[in-house]
């Protein structure tokens, strides 16, 4: 007998839970998340990047973490996503997503709960099979699918999503929901303004009662990838060599700042540039995780004596895969500063100065300006922070400072879940909650409805 307390899960009756083993799929630029609704974290997190090997029999596609980090010759790493958060290459995107779902969740053949050893086989096995027969080759014939989409997803893309789910995957029921709303749900909020800083883009989504206020949705390309580029620039400026892991066979310790002394691997057919770039990205993510810091305020990093204060703080060491290492002082504040202050961005010939309206404070202001006045204080009281790049050290402090500076007279509250998973996978978690609710049953778009109304039903139903 468990006495209910703050940490025990509520009973399903309390929150109208009723799991129907739906699958929640949350595709992103850097990773694609999938898992069964009702679970805490996505069971399957696969990179959205895929490998393409040009061989004699046409291009061969490789999916999954293991495949794309394997330094094969002629391996090109690609991403089906466009830079604006909309899928460009639908054909491969479908495959990436399908791989994410089938590799860990349903298995290559539709999963049969009666045969996976967890349940004794009995009469039910038959029933399932009989029903599933017609769709047997379809990967999702058994599971309703909830997919996420960015707030500005065009109608074309949405229709494509339902088409893929229904036609190619054979899902019995489908629904499409905005990442912003779901991230808010994951924090237990139905209304709020959601700040999602992912890999390819940053978005600000005002949500009211579980519905996106479309006019207020703002996005900008200043996100994780942008920060990576800033790091590359700073490395270039300071002549810091960036050697990815796969090139190093062994390394020896060297003093800080001293050239690396490592043995490098040689390849008969060297992997492509895109492969190298993707591998470098891993190092950069490591760098982001362990070194980069956001100037927490007050004021911008360039303001007054802030830089001096930053210099006085102890630095953070970083060691490259080849053994090169250094302690990073005030530079570590510079790379992420442009998220808040475009003027501080490092620029070179390829990367120009980002636009003023793309920095996060401007996005928030623009978003709020497009929302009915009466809702603004409510939204500012529920600022949900999500996305992998918000994990940058001191990001929330700075954000909080900027919001309070812009809106001094309202009660602004940042909701930034502490656990890394909850921050990174908020949209998926929200979807998991939603799709496991009994009250959601009536919202699914069923196959029958799809066949009756065609693809544009998604516009009518998933608002």
């Amino acid at each position, binding site marked *: *007998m*468990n006495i209910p307390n703050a940490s025990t899960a509520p009973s399903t009756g309390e929150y*109208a839970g*009723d*799991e*129907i*083993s739906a699958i929640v799929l949350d595709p992103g630029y850097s990773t694609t998340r999938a898992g069964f609704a009702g679970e805490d974290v996505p069971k399957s997190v696969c990179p959205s990047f895929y490998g393409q090997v040009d061989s004699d029999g046409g291009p061969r596609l490789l999916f999954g973490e293991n495949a794309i980090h394997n330094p094969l010759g002629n391996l090109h790493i690609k991403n089906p996503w466009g830079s604006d958060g909309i899928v460009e290459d639908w054909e491969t995107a479908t495959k990436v997503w399908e791989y994410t779902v089938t590799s860990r969740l349903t298995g290559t053949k539709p999963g049969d*709960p009666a045969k996976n050893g967890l*349940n*004794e086989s*009995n*009469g*039910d096995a*038959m*029933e*399932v099979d*009989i*029903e599933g027969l017609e769709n047997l080759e379809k990967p999702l014939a058994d599971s*309703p699918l909830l997919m996420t989409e960015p707030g500005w997803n065009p109608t074309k893309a949405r229709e494509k999503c339902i088409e893929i789910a229904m036609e190619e995957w054979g899902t*019995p*029921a489908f629904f499409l929901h905005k990442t912003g709303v779901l991230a808010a749900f994951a924090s237990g909020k139905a209304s709020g303004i959601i700040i999602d800083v992912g890999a390819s883009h940053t978005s600000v989504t005002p949500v*009211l*009662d579980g*519905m996106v*206020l*479309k*006019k*207020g949705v703002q996005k900008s390309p200043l996100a994780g990838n942008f920060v990576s580029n800033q790091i590359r620039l700073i490395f270039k400026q300071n002549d810091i060599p960036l050697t990815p892991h796969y090139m190093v066979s062994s390394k020896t310790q060297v003093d800080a700042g001293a050239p690396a002394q490592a043995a490098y691997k040689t390849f008969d057919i060297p992997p492509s540039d895109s492969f190298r770039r993707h591998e470098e990205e891993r190092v950069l993510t490591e760098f982001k995780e362990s070194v980069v810091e956001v100037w927490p305020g007050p004021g911008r990093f360039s303001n007054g004596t802030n830089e001096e204060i930053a210099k006085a703080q102890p630095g953070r060491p970083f060691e490259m895969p080849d053994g090169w290492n250094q302690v990073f002082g005030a530079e570590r504040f510079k790379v992420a500063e442009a998220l808040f202050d475009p003027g501080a961005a490092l620029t070179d010939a390829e990367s120009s100065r980002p636009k003023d309206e793309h920095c996060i404070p401007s996005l928030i202001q623009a978003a709020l300006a497009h*929302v*009915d*006045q*009466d*809702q*603004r*204080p409510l939204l500012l009281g529920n600022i949900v922070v999500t996305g992998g790049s918000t994990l940058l050290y001191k990001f929330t402090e700075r954000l909080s400072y900027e919001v309070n*500076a812009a*809106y*001094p*007279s*309202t009660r602004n509250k940042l909701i930034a879940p502490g656990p890394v998973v909850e921050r990174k996978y908020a949209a998926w978690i929200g979807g998991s909650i939603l799709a496991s609710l*009994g*009250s959601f*049953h*009536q919202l*699914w778009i*069923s*196959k*029958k*409805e799809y066949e009756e109304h065609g693809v544009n039903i998604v516009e009518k139903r998933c*608002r």
Partner: protein
Amino acid sequence: MASGRDVRDMLGLPVSGEVQKTVVQKRPKLAAPARRIQGVAREVAALYGERPPPVAVYEEKKSYRAKRQNTGPAKRWVQQPFTNQARTDGLVLKHWRRKPAPQPTNSEDTTMEDGENKEPYIENSSEFLKYNIQLDMPTFTDEEYDAHLRSDDWSREETDHLFQMIKDYSYRWAIIWDRYDYRPSNNNTLTVQEPAQDGDSSHALASLPFPPPKTRTVEDMKARFYEISAKLMKLRIPEVEMDADQYARYDMLTKFDPLLERNRKSLASALMNRSMDEVKEEEFLLAELQRINMAANRLDAERAELRARLEAPIPNQQVAAGLQSFTSSQALQALFQQLFQQDRNNKKRASGTGPARLSLSANDIIGTPTSAGHSLMSAANRRQSMAQPPPPTPIRTLAPQEEYRFNVSTHDRLTSGVSFGSDKLLKMRQAKSNVQTQKIAAALQQLGISDIIAIPTSRVGEVFEQLVGKVGKLLDVRKVREKEEGECRVLEAMKAKRDGVEGAGHAERNGGENGEQSVLQDSREGHEEEDEDVDADADEDADGEPDADGEADDDADGEADEDAEGEDEDAEGEDESGVPSRRGTSEAVSTRAMSNAGHKRSASVLSQASSKSSKRVRK
């Protein structure tokens, strides 16, 4: 190693083995009566000494987690297909459910076979039907639209679109406004068809000249929707028939002013967009204000204290006269009374109400020099009031609307004890006399108010009180009216008589004059004693003038016979001061009633008056 003997020696215990034995035997004996406390370590229990603590520190069997109970073999679960009743397309989903228990006679295998042979059972789930909420929207027909709801600014097309949006987004105006995407281009093509449809060219023409892009503000949309709602509401339920809630809603709908709303919003956004400095300044000012308020409270209290001090105790002649005045026993008695009184006052205050507000306010009342009982105030009292802590934190006052919402009511005076709302209502039904009570009951019944009102909240009580008051007035009016009628009757009879008499000759003139006189006297009496019951009047008429009765017989008092028991005591309830005005109204009512209703007077008057009164209630 010290042997037991050495130890015993050291402790000065007797060495003999016999004693040792007894000690050994004794120990369990001692331990036996002390109940072993469960869940507490033996060492800790030992610290309790002879007597366990009065409150068990932890008596429960130590169990952080209940032992897993063996409930037999593992329960079977099945993926149960089900349909949701909220869906119309019969989508079959599956959820995990306990497998229904097999028949006890069947063995495992047979149930398994059963499962295989059975038609797949599909559960029809209504569990979550309650979440499928439909909202009620005002609806209108084409005729209604054409007759009442037209607008120069909104085409029918767009109005329908707006209504659809409101329905889709469940009155979430912010979202409706956000998603509002009415495309007049669409409209243009449709307006071409429209005249053909409803044959109304003016309508189509009216919608054509608009420039295609039309941005609507939330206020525009709200104004349109509320306007239509109000009009429809009025069409469905005439204004006079709405009940209080409906009328309140109607009132709200008609009073919506988009301009005001827009101004409010711009003010709100101005408030929100203040700069940091302004906000700081406001904060500072607020803090300052609070400080001043606090100081003012304290200052007021101090000043009041000072005033109380300065205002010399009511000059007590006896005191003024010095001790000499207390020589007589009478004077001593008076002094004793006074002191006793003071003492009682003190006690009352000390023992009385709760510590914070009520006692303080009572104190305040006594403490203010203007209050009534100040003659009894003594220095002791004042000292006590001085000892009161500085003024309490300001009591939060609620706006009337908030009070209404949270159902908070303030009372000047609270009666002690508990009283039932239903009792209050019952009391209101009772007048001083039986007859009046019955009349009130009859009137209430006629209004369709049941004897027992289900939830006698204070608000219901208030309304009921008003109603009963009105019924009382109504009854008065009716009474007066009947009296007037009686007079009229008498006068008419007199007139008829006189005509007859004049025609017949002068022989019976005297008798006629007598009759007249008596009638006149009667009526004069009636005028003078307004409180007198009308029925008494009528009775008098009947008694005093048997001949006039014959003509006035059609009045018959059939409907009015609830009044027929002419008891004068009814009149007690009446308010003397209200008589003249009442009379005026009663005349008006009675003449109107006579002119149009004739015989069915009481009923019609009642219904008229009641509709009037209920109208008043609503307004």
